[in-house]
């Protein structure tokens, strides 16, 4: 998991290594300073010459300046390394997602991909920045301080034999109890926030049913519960300080009591300066232990994020481009041979089963069926957005798996049901279909999709900015722009997945009329709720429960298919107008 991420370091390996070097420098100097200060103090007791004093002072001064330089530089290079790592991870995830098949996207869901690209990477970046600085510095300082303390203090260093294990155990125990407690409470906390969000979103329902007091009561109970758990967890962590303090004070008392005896009795060569440096080392050792426990906590918390990131990086795209690929699509004929499909290997139920269909090039095919009848699934197999589970699909006489993906998808234009426009001008959005399209071609496509009139009515015409999510155009307008965008690909096969549902019947008819007149050689597949949208197709497929229940022309189906007739009657009698 950490290896997957560290592989993203690439050009930022150098700042990482430099950071580590600088940190080592800083740690070494900082560990030595009390040692030299102790010497200085000793010399003072012994009564040294001014010149010697100033020399030692100067050495110390230079050392601290070097340490300052090292620390400052490490701060900067670590920022560079961590920001760089984040940048590369973001790049890699985004790149990976570009190779994903629809099934991979479904597996992660777009909102979770967004979290991984933002919050998770941020967590990892912060952890990494701390890691390369502190994870080097803390153990180094710890070891140095311990060594120095033993060299200098001799017997006095015995105190650390007691203090270090006590503090280490204390910190470990706190970590052991606090971490799971925090994990639990954060989960609950997330749920609480979710329920607040539900309330904010559903305020009309809450107020409509006069449930304000009920919601307050419900909230109070949940909040009270979280408060209790939170307090428990925080109280465990609050023991950190006192434990640290106990060790620190024990250290001081011990050094003073034992140290004074040793010095006065002249038991060893230790002197006052060294004793006071021992106090400093003692402090440093304990602080570093504390640091280590913090690093541990930070690592465990960011491990979650690291795991989620490497999941994406290690995901294998479900659809691969064939190595020797067919680059051109001959025509718009489509053949389904015994096709069955399920969304995942584990799924019990097939979303599509035993589909056999032949669609000649240039034909218009309508598809009708209730929600959950797998209409969308059916058409998404044609441009190989998903791979069939059994059987095969041929486009232009060649198995879709043998085509270069780009070539296939350029020939098969699909207007998705859940379609989006991107922020940018209308022109920019349309040019997704063909980056080299001239203005005339854009207008032509928009005329065909009945979008030209309303686009030119905008003050800025084709340069009108579309806001994120396309919120400043109506549903029907958005659908027509999406159709125009697809038309610009000049596809051999055009698929409309319920793409005119918000367009009124008259405009809808105009669009189909245009298709017939201007792109007669393109195979058109139209999924619709309205029978009127498919009535004049060459062939209509009625889908039910993942199967083709019936196929034929309108007249044939009216004769032979109950479902079709039922829907038709309901729509015509009920006023064949569902503009929703």
């Amino acid at each position: 998991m950490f290896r997957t991420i560290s592989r993203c370091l690439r050009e930022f390996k150098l700042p990482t290594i430099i950071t580590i070097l600088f940190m080592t420098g800083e740690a070494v100097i900082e560990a030595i300073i009390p040692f030299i200060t102790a010497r200085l103090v000793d010399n003072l007791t012994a009564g040294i010459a001014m010149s010697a004093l100033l020399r030692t002072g100067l050495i110390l001064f230079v050392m601290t300046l070097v340490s300052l330089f090292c620390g400052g530089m490490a701060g900067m290079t670590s920022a560079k390394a961590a920001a760089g790592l984040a940048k590369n991870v973001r790049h890699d995830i985004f790149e990976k997602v570009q190779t994903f098949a629809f099934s991979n996207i479904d597996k992660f869901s777009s909102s979770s991909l967004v979290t991984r690209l933002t919050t998770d990477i941020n967590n990892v970046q912060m952890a990494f920045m701390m890691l390369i600085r502190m994870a080097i510095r803390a153990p180094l300082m710890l070891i140095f301080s311990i060594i120095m303390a033993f060299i200098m203090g001799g017997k006095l260093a015995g105190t650390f034999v007691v203090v270090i294990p006590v503090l280490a155990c204390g910190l470990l125990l706190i970590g052991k109890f606090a971490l799971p407690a925090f994990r639990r409470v954060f989960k609950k906390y997330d749920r609480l926030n979710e329920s607040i969000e539900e309330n904010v979103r559903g305020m009309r329902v809450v107020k409509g049913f006069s449930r304000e007091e009920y919601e307050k009561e419900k909230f109070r109970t949940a909040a009270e519960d979280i408060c209790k758990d939170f307090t428990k967890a925080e109280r465990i962590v609050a023991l950190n300080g006192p434990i640290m303090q106990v060790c620190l004070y024990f250290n001081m008392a011990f050094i003073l009591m034992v140290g004074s005896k040793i010095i006065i009795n002249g038991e060893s060569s230790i002197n006052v300066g060294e004793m006071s440096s021992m106090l400093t080392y003692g402090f440093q050792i304990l602080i570093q232990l504390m640091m280590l426990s913090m690093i541990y906590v930070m690592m465990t918390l960011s491990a979650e994020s690291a795991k989620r990131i490497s999941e994406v990086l290690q995901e294998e795209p479900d659809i691969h481009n064939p190595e020797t690929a067919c680059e051109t699509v001959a025509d718009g004929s489509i053949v389904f041979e015994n096709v069955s499909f399920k969304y995942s290997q584990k799924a019990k139920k097939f979303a599509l089963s035993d589909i056999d269909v032949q669609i000649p090039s240039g034909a218009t095919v309508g598809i009708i069926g209730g929600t959950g009848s797998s209409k969308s699934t059916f058409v998404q197999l044609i441009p190989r957005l998903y791979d069939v589970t059994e059987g095969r699909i041929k486009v232009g006489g060649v198995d879709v798996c043998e085509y270069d993906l780009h070539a296939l998808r350029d020939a098969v234009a699909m207007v998705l049901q859940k379609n989006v426009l991107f922020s940018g001008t209308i022109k920019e959005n349309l040019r997704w279909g063909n980056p080299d399209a001239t203005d005339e071609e854009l207008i032509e496509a928009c005329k065909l999709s009945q979008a030209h009139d309303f686009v030119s009515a905008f003050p800025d015409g084709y340069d009108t900015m579309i806001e994120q999510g396309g919120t400043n155009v109506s549903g029907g307008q958005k659908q027509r722009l999406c159709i125009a965008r697809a038309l610009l690909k000049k596809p051999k096969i055009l698929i409309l997945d319920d793409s005119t549902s918000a367009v009124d019947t008259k405009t809808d008819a105009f669009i189909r009329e245009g298709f017939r007149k201007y792109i007669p050689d393109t195979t058109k597949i139209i999924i619709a709720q309205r029978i009127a949208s498919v009535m004049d197709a060459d062939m209509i497929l009625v889908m039910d429960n993942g199967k083709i229940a019936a196929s034929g022309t309108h007249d044939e189906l009216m004769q032979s298919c109950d479902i079709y007739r039922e829907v038709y009657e309901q729509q015509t009698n009920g006023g064949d107008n569902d503009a929703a």
Partner: protein
Amino acid sequence: MPRNNNYGEPKKPAEAFKSLKRLLGLLRQFYPKLLPVTLVCILFSSGASAIPAVFLQKVIADIEVFSESGDWAAARAVIYPKVYVLIALYVVSIICMTLWQQLVAIMTQGFLNKMRCKLFDSMQNLPIRYFDTHKHGDIMSHYTNDIDTLRQMLSQALPSLVQAGAVVVFVFAIMLYYSIWLTLIVIIGIVLMMTVSKKIGGGSAKYFIRQQAAVGKTEGFVQEMMNGQKVVQVFCHEEQSQKDFDAVNDALYEDMYRAHAYANALVPIIMNIGNVLYVIIATIGGVLLLTDVPNLSFSGMPICLSIVVPFLNMTKQFTGNLNQVTQQINAIVMAVAGADRIFTLMDEQPEADDGYVTMVNVHTAADGTVTEADEITHEWAWKHPHTADGSITYTPLRGEVTLDSVDFAYEEGKDVLHDVTVFAKPGQKVAFVGATGAGKTTITNLINRFYDIADGKIRYDGININKIKKSDLRRSLGIVLQETNLFTGSVMENIRYGRLDATDEECVAAAKLAGADDFITRLPEGYDTLLSGNGANLSQGQRQLIAIARAAVADPPVMILDEATSSIDTRTEAIVQRGMDALMKGRTVFVIAHRLSTVKNSDVIMVLDHGRIIERGSHDALLEKKGTYYQLYTGAFELD
């Protein structure tokens, strides 16, 4: 409708100070006893951690004296008592520290809990207008970001500030007690430190602001692209979007790197300036020792080794704690800004309810006289006290709603409804059709008083709705909205939301009525299936059916169906329609729908255009008229 942004200009210092005062005031109000105890403990423990330096100095002085004679027994008699006092101080310090840290943990979470509940209570009391004009993300961030900054402040910043502040004062006093010269040098060092940190901090702040903007931009881009990823693939746009992303990503990297570089450099630099100071004090202390410059101090002690040594430690303590103080001030400024936003929401004008007509259970005697009942009689009436003569009248609940020349505007000067008059007799079905923005939904917003009308009258059973208590008015109206909102919990709980005292059987009956029973029983755990994330595990149509069942269980005399069946496909709608018809029977119903098939059998259909009723009549009458409705019906118009 305009959406306000909560994160506008930063408040003036005076106002920020007011928020801080209010925050502390609340803290005192919630914890009148614990708060002073905690403060005393903090002061004690910080005092007890500063004073040892004095004893340390004394012990070292003693060692110096006795090391020459080497008489341990005599030294011990002098030194050990001091060490014992020291240990006693330590014990006090540890006890105080343990106490205040536990208390802070308890108070922080308790305070946050109380603030959360207060915030939620205030929010529940806000009018719908607030939710329509504020981004939901912004409201949510009060509960997450703003409360989090409070947590930071209470659990860390404030105690550290008090503690470090106290240590700084204590240590400073002790330093002056020993040597004014050395103290002066420390002060010069501190000034240098502050200057540097201000300079670097300023640079850091500048880039942090830029980083924030870059983060926002990247998140926006990522969100848009991840949501549109399927479109990207359909159009083979992968390479282009990777290129666009890299541009955004590189820009983010630049700002992020700089912001963190400054921030990261700051801490070691400040810490090392502390070290430099330490070295300088050691050297100068040495010089002073050697040159016999007269010491200037409050204690009158001459400079000697036993002053220089503890002074060195105090220097570290002093600079360390001073850094703490400056860092904590930052956190407190942020928390005050958060508190300010929370208070802004709490101070919002709550939804006013001055209605005095209430809905009560009644008995109707054989002679038609109505008496109020305490028990559930399934018979309701409006209890109308008249202030003029103190009498009370009971009007049976029938479900007659009239709108009389109603005008309304969301914003001053931009009228949404003009002169709208509608009569709905009990049991009638009234439909509204018209383009988006014609004012259909607005009318329903007015009937249940989500918004108050500007001019005209709305009456319910002949009573002006302004006189009816809002909660009772809304209880008498059932609503099903296009955007279904379900709550986390089981299907059963969600249905029961309509009437909290409904039995399981009543809930199931309501689900059957709505035609939802069929699919619910096929769910893995039937009515006990847990819904999460607004019922993400259900289809839009299924969610809608549960919402209809929820309204059905409330059994109100008047129903408002706002696009209730729009997300159900025509085939399923046929099934739902039966349930809906059953549901509508005997009730006054207001229907808003795109699908004209849904409104066709209404008693009266109102065609709205730009806030005016331009046509009204039954389906057949309107078709005959060959007006707007006719055009809509024949599909010549686009509704969206």
